[in-house]
C-alpha cells in the first residue's frame, strides 16, 4: 500500500489500461516514460500483471452434454406453450388494429352524420341561403314594382334591342 500511495489514481488506472492495451499513443508514451523513471511504477505494473494472470487458474467448466438438447427442447416447448395469439408482438399488433378500427369507424360515422345532417335536417339559415339571389337583387325588384310592367318592357322589341346593344357596349 505504501508503494501504491506514491502513484496517483489516474496513474494507477492508466497502468492497468496500459497492460490491457487500451491507451492511445499519447497515454502509452506517458506510461512508458513513467515506467522508465519510476521503480514504483515498474513494480506496480509487474504485480498487477502477475496477479491478474492468476485468474487463469479459475475453473472453466464445460456445459453438460445434454445442455444443448435441453435448451432447444425448452425453447421449442415455450413456443408451443405460447401460441401466436399469446405472443407479445401479436398482442401489440392486435391492440393497434383494434384501435385503428375504432378510429376509422369514428371518422366514418362522423362523416356520415355530417352528410345526413347537412342534407336532411332543415336549419333556419337554409331559407335565407335558398333565397339569396332574390335577397341580393331585392332593390332592383322593388324598383320594378310589378311583373306586368316587366312584360310590357320585354314586349317592346326596339327597347330590348337598344338594351342589348348598350349591354354589349358596356361589356366591351
Amino acid at each position, binding site marked *: 500500500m505504501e508503494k501504491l500511495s506514491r502513484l496517483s489514481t489516474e496513474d494507477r488506472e492508466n497502468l492497468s*489500461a496500459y497492460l490491457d492495451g487500451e491507451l492511445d499513443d499519447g497515454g502509452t508514451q506517458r506510461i512508458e516514460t513513467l515506467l522508465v523513471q519510476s521503480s514504483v511504477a515498474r513494480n506496480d505494473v509487474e504485480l498487477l500483471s502477475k*496477479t491478474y494472470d492468476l485468474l*487463469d*487458474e*479459475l*475453473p472453466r467448466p464445460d*456445459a453438460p452434454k445434454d445442455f*444443448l438438447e435441453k435448451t432447444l427442447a425448452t425453447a421449442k416447448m*415455450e413456443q408451443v406453450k405460447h401460441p401466436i395469439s399469446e405472443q407479445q408482438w401479436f398482442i401489440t399488433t392486435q391492440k393497434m388494429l383494434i384501435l385503428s378500427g375504432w378510429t376509422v369507424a369514428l371518422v366514418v360515422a362522423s362523416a356520415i352524420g355530417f352528410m345526413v345532417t347537412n342534407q336532411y335536417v332543415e336549419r333556419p339559415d337554409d331559407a335565407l341561403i335558398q333565397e339569396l339571389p332574390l335577397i341580393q337583387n331585392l332593390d332592383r325588384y322593388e324598383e320594378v314594382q310589378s311583373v306586368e310592367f316587366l312584360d310590357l318592357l320585354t314586349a317592346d322589341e326596339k327597347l330590348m334591342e337598344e338594351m342589348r346593344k348598350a349591354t354589349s357596349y358596356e361589356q366591351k
Partner: protein
Amino acid sequence: MVTSSVSTSPYLRDPDVQLMLRVKDGDDSAFAQIVERFQNRLIGIFTNMFADNALAEDLSQEVFLRIYRARQGYEPTAKLSTWIFQIANNLASNSRRSKGRKKEVQFKVSNSGSQPVQMGENNVVEKSGLMPTRQLDNVELMERVQVALLDLNERQRMAVLLHRFEGMSYADIGAAMELSPQAVKSLLSRARENLREILENYVT
C-alpha cells in the same frame, strides 16, 4: 427481414450476427449453433460469478431462451456477443437481487466441500497431469483465486470475467454492462488492485 438501415450495419460481418439473422428467419439449426458457440463461455462466467454450477446452467439456459424469444424483433445493432453478455449481465444482476449473497457466503465458509472447487480440481488434474503434491498446490491456488474473485464487488467481478475470459475491450464491456469505457477502466483498475492485495503473496 433486414431493414435498409440494418442492411448497412457494420455488424453484418460478424458470423454470429449472421447466425442470429437466420434464427430470426426461422432457422432453428442456426439457434443450435449459437447455443453451441456460447454455452461454455456463459457457463464459465456464471460459474465464477456465483460459485454455483446448477445456477450457472440455469442462468445460461435462460440467456438462450431470452435470445430465442426475442428473435423476431432482432436487429444487428451490435456484435451478437455484446448482446448476449448484456442479457447475461442483466440476469446476473436480477439473480443477485433475488437470491442475495447466500451462495457466495456458503462458498467462502466451506471451500473444500463446495461444488466449484471439486469441479476445478478435476479441471486442473486433467489439464496439468502433474504429481499429486503439486496438484494440491494448484488446487489451493485455484481456491485462493476463486475467493479473491468473490471478494470483488459484483460489477468488478463481471467486468473482470468479461475481460479475462472473453477478451472483451473496454468499449464492449461498457456496452454489455451499460457503462462508459472510462467507467470500465476505473472498475477494472480497482478490481486489479483488489486482486493484487489479496493474491500478492501467491505471485512468484
